[in-house]
């Protein structure tokens, strides 16, 4: 078991998803239990399924000096960065610490692969990528992080985490280690993933996509609904902002079981949750809310439900919010971290949308509808392909050790 670590202040955060742009749009949608899922109208040959599409990406234009980075994913990153004065907060941190003392660590599963897909649909007569898309920077998995470094004018260590659906949650762990060792004084973390043919047709080929809006933890769930999102957070040492919410800890593990299905007893997920509690110096009884991974796939929800039911008291509230946003893959970790932070700020437990009749493994912890309750400590689970797990632990400032 790891030792407790000093907590970090989350001095700014923002999220943009199918629920809208910025925190207030999310607060309103979560309060009303309004889903952003709509029938799929993405791609030239839309599959019969539901998606969480962000309005306004097509109409977004990058400023001229950044034009070489233009693609759907970087446009969504740009939209996301320009909410909630996030760039202003990073600018202030840059003034305080210097641009080379801030790390930039972002998670994504597909980066700008959508641009590469488009290039292949429009190969020229010689079989070459068409001239307008012959831009090296948008055809690499590091595209997102390169773009955001340029936007935020950060010169510190930069890293793209690409562990499928745990990517942007793991960015917090990478950043915490760098700050603790004094490599940097602050870190911008987060992630962006956009709708693209690779994931829509890929998950379709794996028969994991639901033909109806996803229903996490419902007995009649039929698979996932894919969404797109961007989210960012600024992490600093806790002395920097005594009243900001805290990252208390995290736990990471590997299932060592199967590439695309979870360990049947939830071994890896349990290790991640236990390690997060140990690093945060918490007992399960102290956890007020858990934002679950809850994808609405048959196996994930069954395993996660059993784990939460056996590990936490009935006072712990638990829910998945993927029926509202869709599963935003590499961005899911930051979206759900932001939702957990909002829940703490507002004393509002989001209901487990999409679930009418809970899976038999769901215990008394399930918050099926919205609840009002003070939340001092919140966890957020993210599990990815390849059995890659992470659990993040957050707390209100006054609750932090």
């Amino acid at each position, binding site marked *: 078991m790891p030792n407790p670590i000093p907590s970090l202040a989350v001095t700014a955060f923002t999220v943009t998803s199918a629920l809208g742009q910025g925190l207030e749009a999310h607060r309103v949608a979560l309060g009303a239990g309004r889903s952003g899922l709509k029938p799929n109208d993405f791609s030239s040959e839309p599959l019969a399924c539901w998606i969480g599409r962000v309005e306004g990406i097509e109409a977004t234009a990058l400023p001229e000096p950044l034009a070489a980075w233009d693609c759907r994913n970087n446009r969504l990153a740009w939209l996301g960065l320009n909410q909630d004065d996030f760039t202003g907060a990073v600018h202030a941190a840059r003034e305080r610490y210097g641009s080379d003392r801030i790390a930039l660590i972002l998670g994504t*599963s597909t980066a700008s692969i959508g641009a590469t897909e488009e290039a292949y649909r429009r190969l020229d007569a010689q079989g070459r990528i068409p001239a307008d898309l012959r831009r090296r920077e948008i055809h690499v998995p590091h595209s997102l992080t390169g773009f955001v470094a340029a936007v935020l004018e950060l010169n510190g260590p930069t890293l793209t985490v690409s562990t499928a659906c745990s990517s942007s949650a793991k960015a917090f762990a990478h950043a915490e280690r760098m700050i603790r060792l004094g490599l940097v004084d602050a870190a911008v973390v987060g992630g962006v993933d956009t709708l693209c043919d690779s994931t829509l047709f890929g998950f379709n080929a794996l028969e994991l996509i639901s033909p109806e809006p996803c229903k996490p933890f419902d007995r009649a769930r039929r698979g996932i609904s894919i969404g797109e999102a961007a989210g960012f957070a600024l992490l600093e040492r806790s002395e920097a902002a005594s009243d900001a919410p805290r990252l208390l800890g995290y736990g990471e593990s*590997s299932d060592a079981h199967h590439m695309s299905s979870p360990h049947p007893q939830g071994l890896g997920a349990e290790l991640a949750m236990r390690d997060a509690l140990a690093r945060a110096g918490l007992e399960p009884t102290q956890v007020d809310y858990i934002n679950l991974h809850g994808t609405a796939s048959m196996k994930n929800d069954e395993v996660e439900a059993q784990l939460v039911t056996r590990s936490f008291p009935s006072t712990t509230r638990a829910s998945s919010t993927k029926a509202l946003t869709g599963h935003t893959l590499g961005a899911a970790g930051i979206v759900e971290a932001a939702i957990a932070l909002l829940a703490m700020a507002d004393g509002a437990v989001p209901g487990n949308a999409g679930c009418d009749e809970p899976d038999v493994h769901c215990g008394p912890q399930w918050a099926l509808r919205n609840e009002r309750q003070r939340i001092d400590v919140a966890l957020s689970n993210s599990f990815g392909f390849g059995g890659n797990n992470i659990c993040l632990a957050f707390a209100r400032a006054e609750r932090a050790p």
Partner: protein
Amino acid sequence: MSALRVHVDGVGLWAAHWPHFHALREQLAGQTVSPAERTRPPAERLPANERRRAPESVLLAIEVAGQAIDMSGADQTQLACVFASAHGDHVITDYMCSTLARAPTELSPTRFHNSVHNAPVGYWTIAIGCHAPSTAICAGHTSFGAALLEAATQVQADQRPALLVCSDIAGSGALNELTGCRQSFGCALVLSPEKGNRSVASLQLRVTAGETPVTTSPSATLPEWYTDNASARALPLLTLLARDGGRAALALAPAMHLDVHTEIIQ
């Protein structure tokens, strides 16, 4: 900031002419190294049926990981895993984009699940039964420097050994005009916080602002293709490890580099 200090307990290597770290050592010592037969990396830690089906990206990463573990004698089930690749599986990306352009519903489910950037580390943890934390990262052409810093950070932050793998296969198809990766290259290091009886070197890493200065002495012996493959940018460090130690500068970000001081432990 003070330097991060870690120990190297094992090294793995697979590339043209160097099917093993010893081959690089022998070549640098002036011996003639016979060209490697261009077979697939053996990747013996994968179960035989997985080995037959696995893409080259997975075989390459698992081969060098296994070599580094064998040299270190470390308990492979306990090591945190940091796997890096600038491009992931180029060949699968080319297949996926071609198929999606032509007949999207014919996309192969297996190729899709092998396309995720963390496929090699996923196969590794499954093959050897490792429940330790694992990650998959990239940073464009600075992927090796960024990955070395990340692995050393994990070693120091959690005071536990870690396995670093950095690998990129040769590209194919239309995309390769932009990525230009012509040769496969993979390397691995087992890093530990304390000097052990198998330690071969100690590294002092210092994060340094400014563009990467050119490392002169080792690069004279490096093949002309080494800068085309982001993972092969590990070669200046690997040549120091294979010879007498010394300093290398590794790119970390556009305006930042890692100053590495290598001391060989006899």
